[in-house]
Every structure is written in structure tokens, then in C-alpha cells.
């Protein structure tokens, strides 16, 4: 018994403490979402009145197209993450496996480019997309397509860098063997590399997805039409407005918006952990 205590009690104590810390805000959001007054009232930790009005409001109020926002977010983040990883994987493969002149220079440039504090590039991105709007309004400023283009460009550097790290950890033996058999780089890429890297690609796709889902600064300037907004912009308006705040609706919306991400995350948990560590655990 004492040995059990010595060995395991502290483990449970630490774990329970962390669980409390992790769940505290989540619990607060849940009770706020059930609070009908829509205020930030968390003076008591047990709700004295439970109501689902905040949830029903999201689905019935015609001025809050919540489901459309949700779909917009999933669609934008989904498309961006997939295309970005497809393009990024090819570059990462080339950096990792091919020999060519200027590779080191290329890598250094990539590293540097990523370090630039990108927030000011906002102004430039704006000017570019505005000009694009002048001749192709469908993909310029103020459109989802335009926003996706900007996201794609922005995620490219990070993704290539991230993917390269992962790709480096995939053993070389297999493609060496294929090379000896006379396979071209394209064949190695499609037939050997892609299947091997699939879990890693999935992880980076997911991380890009979450990153895009969370983006807010650009989205609120790009997506002004109610129907085109993402869930992050839409929900922020409940509490970020100058004139009105509605924490109840925000909390309810946040919970619903989080569910798909949490589900994906938990179901892919094993791969994500493997993916996250792959970059580091190469000895």
C-alpha cells in the first residue's frame, strides 16, 4: 500500500491538478452557454438557471447564419490545408531527397522568409488583393477565394519547413533501393514517398486546418458579407462589438464550433502525437 502510494499517488495528484486546470475554462464556457441572460455572469460556479436559448438562437435567428459560418470555416480551412500540403509536400520532398545546386541557399532563404514579422505584410497583401480585385473580382479582396489564396501563400513557408523536418525522419533506405532499380524521382515521390509520408501529411494538414480555422485578423477584413464570414469572425462579433456583448451566444457558438475540431483531433490523436514527435525524435 505504501509503495503504491509512493509510486502512484503523486502521479494521480499531478494529473488531477492538470485536469482541473485544463477543464476549468471549458466548464466556464459550458455554464455561460446555458446562462439565459447572455452576460458574463460567472459569480457562482453552479448555474442557478439552465436554458438552451443561446443554442436555439444560433439555429433559429435569421440574422445569425451560424451554420453558414460553420460551413464557411470548415470549407475554407479544409481546402487551404489540403492544397497547401499537396504543394508543400512536393517542395519538402525535393529539399529532403534531391540533390541540386543552390539547395542550401534555398533552405536559408526559406528559413529567413519565415522569420519576417508578417503582420505588416498585411498592408502589402491588402494592396495586392485590391489590385487583383480590379481585374478579377471573383478572387480579389472581399472574397473567400481571395482569402484562401492569401492563406495558401502564407502557410506555404511554414509548411515546407515543417514537412521537411518530418520527411527527413523517414528512412532513406527505401528510396535508395528504388533508385538502384532505376526509378525516376517522380516515381519515387508518388510510389514510395507519398505512402510512407501519409500519416505525417495528415498531421500537417490537420495543423494547417486548425491554424486557418483560428485566423481572424485577415478574415474579418476580407469577409464582410454576413453570409461569407467564418465562424471566428462571426462569433467575435457577439463580444467584440463596441455597442453590444452577448457572452451566452458566444459561448454556445464556441462549443459547437469546437466540436468538429476536437473530434478530429481526438480520433487522430495517435498520428498527431507520432507526427509531432517525428520531427524531433530522430536522434
Amino acid at each position, binding site marked *: 500500500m505504501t509503495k503504491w502510494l509512493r509510486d502512484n499517488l503523486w502521479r494521480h495528484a499531478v494529473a488531477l491538478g492538470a485536469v482541473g486546470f485544463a477543464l476549468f475554462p471549458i466548464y466556464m464556457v459550458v455554464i455561460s452557454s446555458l446562462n439565459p*441572460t447572455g*452576460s*458574463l*455572469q460567472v459569480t457562482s460556479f453552479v448555474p442557478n438557471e439552465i436554458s438552451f436559448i443561446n443554442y436555439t438562437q444560433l439555429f433559429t435567428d435569421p*440574422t445569425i447564419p451560424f451554420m453558414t459560418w460553420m460551413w464557411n470555416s470548415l470549407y475554407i480551412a479544409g481546402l487551404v490545408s489540403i492544397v497547401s500540403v499537396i504543394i508543400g509536400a512536393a517542395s519538402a520532398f525535393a529539399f529532403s531527397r534531391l540533390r541540386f545546386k543552390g539547395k542550401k541557399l534555398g533552405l536559408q532563404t526559406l528559413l529567413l522568409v519565415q522569420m519576417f514579422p508578417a503582420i505588416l505584410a498585411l*498592408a502589402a497583401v*491588402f*494592396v495586392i488583393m*485590391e*489590385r487583383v*480585385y*480590379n481585374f478579377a473580382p471573383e478572387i*480579389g*479582396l*472581399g472574397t473567400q477565394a481571395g482569402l484562401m489564396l492569401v492563406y495558401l501563400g502564407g502557410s506555404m513557408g511554414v509548411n515546407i519547413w515543417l514537412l521537411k523536418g518530418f520527411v527527413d525522419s523517414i528512412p532513406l533506405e527505401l528510396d535508395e533501393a528504388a533508385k538502384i532499380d532505376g526509378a525516376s524521382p517522380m516515381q519515387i515521390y508518388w510510389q514510395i514517398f507519398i505512402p510512407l509520408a501519409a500519416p505525417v501529411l495528415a498531421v500537417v494538414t490537420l495543423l494547417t486546418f486548425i491554424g486557418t480555422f483560428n485566423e481572424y485578423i485577415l478574415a*474579418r*477584413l476580407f469577409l*464582410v*458579407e*454576413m453570409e461569407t*464570414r467564418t465562424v471566428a*469572425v*462571426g462569433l*467575435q*462579433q457577439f463580444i*467584440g*462589438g*463596441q*455597442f*453590444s456583448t452577448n457572452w451566452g451566444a458566444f459561448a454556445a457558438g464556441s462549443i459547437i464550433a469546437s466540436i468538429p475540431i476536437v473530434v478530429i483531433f481526438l480520433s487522430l490523436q495517435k498520428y498527431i502525437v507520432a507526427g509531432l514527435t517525428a520531427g524531433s525524435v530522430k536522434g
Partner: protein
Amino acid sequence: MNSKKIVSLAAALGVVASSLLGATPAMAEDKVITVWADETRGPALSKALGSLADQTEGEWATGYKIKVVSYSSFDALKEALDKATANTGPDVVIGANDWVATGVKNGKVAPLTLPASVRANYTAGALTDLSYQGKLYGIPISMNNTAMLVNTKLTGGKKPATFAEMVDFYTKNKTSKKLSAGLCVAGGGMSFGAIGVLNALGGAPYATDSKGAVLTTKDPIDVTAMTANVKKYLLDSKGKSTGFFPADSTGCKDNFLAGKVPYAVIGNWEWKDYVAKGFNMNNLVSVPGMTKTTFGKSFASVSGAMLTTYAETNGNATGAKSFLNNFFGSATGVVLYARHEQRPPAHKAASGAVSDGAKAFSRTGNQAGMPQIGDILGNSAGGKNFWDALPAYWTAVLIEGKDVAAETKKLNTLFKKNVAEGSKSLK
């Protein structure tokens, strides 16, 4: 080059060529005037106009339909306007009066002249609010102000006549009525919303003469008097806040609605929330001053529908001016709009047609309103602009317990520098 390659190249070029031929120039469409607004005014305007599809073409401007774009917040709208450059900019933007000065400097807003018949519907102050260096840049829509609501259920029907009466009530009933504060700011934040309190205590962002003209040489704050008042009314003997006036505005609305605060400064855009909880707008007053019949003045500025320089580049300038005159300048349009916005309308003919809440704010605005001069309040020649400086002052004296005399003096010096800088452009 082998034959396959040639075939593939040819195929590619074929696709390119055919798709280029398929490209046709854009068709001429109905002309549209685009209006940008924030998350409260935008939907109100949309409802007043009906959706773009429902509008009869030319109803408000010959040959034009009106499209309203609502941003998710006031800040997002401002940021988008700052960043707008060429063809994506709006023709009209609905903004605060203090946008005019920066809007002119950045080439965002364009001047206009209202027909004499329309001009007659507005007070000179409302028009001055939207003017810069003698030119008018928009048409006043509604007044933006705050006033103090009294929870008469708590105070036993009494409305305070002096600042001291409020402090007195708080001190006496703090424990028995479980008050969380005496007077708090529920709407407008600790600068826009708290200006009435600053003024009641003896301070102002700029000094004025009896006619309301800005005095650049006079101290905006009577440092001695204000120091004494802050110490007497807001602090205890140890120099700590008594809790009468919290330095933070968040939570005030909830507390007031819950009956834990007797007096709260509220904004005219949200009075319906209070009426819904059973408060009566007859109990809306100006912040009481040190003696009876004096009041702490608060900003009573107008928001306006401004003409942008993009209307010109978009080829919509005349139409946009027509729209402004015919919709916002006419009683018909303003009443339509006022029905969906809670603030008191700036148009004289429409003010009779509005609700009690809007009337109450009109009353306090006329009683103790002061103009909100963008160039003075927005510049930071003294190190900080007014909007950042006043909250910092409250924090310094009420939370951090810094020396009141020194902080008040600093605030005065800062305001004075800002006034000197900001009044350069006033004529």
C-alpha cells in the same frame, strides 16, 4: 522534342487559346451605391432600405440601388476604411464624427454641400461635428451620447441633485444593500463613457468659453479642485478607492441590471436593454455636478453618413449625394431608419417620431452635451491621446493608488498639449 511532347504542348496551347477566346467583357449591370457600416448601424440601415433585391431602382437615387455592407465591429469597419485604396472602397461610410479629420488627411472622405432645405433640418452643432476646416463631409444621422440612469427602486424614488448625494447614498447603503459600486460606466468605456464623471469632478479634455469655443491657453483641468474632489469623493482616508467609482467598465451593466449599483452611465444605443428589464427612461439624468443644477458634461456627438472619395473614382458621386439628401436628409428616410436604430436621430423633423428612450437621451444631450472634437481628442502630442489617457488616469488613482495631485497635474499638462496641437486645424 519527340512527337508526344509536341502533341501535349499543342494541346496545352489549344486549351489556353480557347479559354482566352471564351473570355467576354463583363456585362453592364445596375448601378449600385455601396454603404459601409458597423454591426449595429448596418443592419438597421439594411432593414430600413429592404434588401438590395427588394429595392425599387431609383427609389432613393435615380438609377441606383443601395447596397449595405455591415462589418463585424466598429474597429473592423475603421480598419477596412483605412486600408481601402481604389475600386473596392465604399461610396458612403457611416462613421463617428471624429473620423472626419483623419478621413480628410488620408484622402478618404469628400466634401459635399447640402441643399438649403436639408441643411435647415440640423442644428449648427451637428453640422460642425461633421465638418473639417470649414467643409462638410457627411450628413448627420443620429446623436451618440451617454447619460446616467438611476435605479430608483434602490434609491427609494430619489434622483440625485449633486455628486455628494450619490456618494452619500453609496456610503450609507453599501453594506445593507450589498452594493458592488456606487456609480459605474456601463456604456462607452472609461473615456467616452466617463467624461461626464471627469467633468463633474472638475476636469475636461479642453477648456471652452461660455459660447463653447475652445480656449487653447486655459487649463482644461482645475487641478486643485479636481484633486480635492477625487480625494473627497472617490478615495478613502488612506488614499484607496472606496469602490464608489470602479476604474473598469466591464461588468457594470450586469451589476446595474442585477440591482447592485444605484447609478450607471449608459449609452444611447443600448437603452432598450434597460427598458426590457423594467427601468424607466424618465430616470435618465445628466451626471450631477458639485452643486445643484450643475452637471458633468458628456460628449454629444453625431454619427454621420459620409461621402467618400471613392464615390468619385467609382463614378457614383452624384448618385451618392442624391442618396444622402433623399434618404438621410428627408423625414421619410430618417423615420424609416430611426425605427431600427435606438439612438436619437439628428434630423429635427424625425425627433418627434421616436421613442421615449431616444427622447430621454436627446434631453440629457441638450442639457449637458459637449462637442467631440476629433483633432483635439485623437492626437497624442502630450504623449497619449485623450481616449487612452483618461482610462490610464482612472487606473493610476483608483487602482494603483498613485498620488492624485501629481497624476491630475500630469493629465492636465497632457490635455493642454493635445489641445494646442489639435486646435491648429480648427478655424
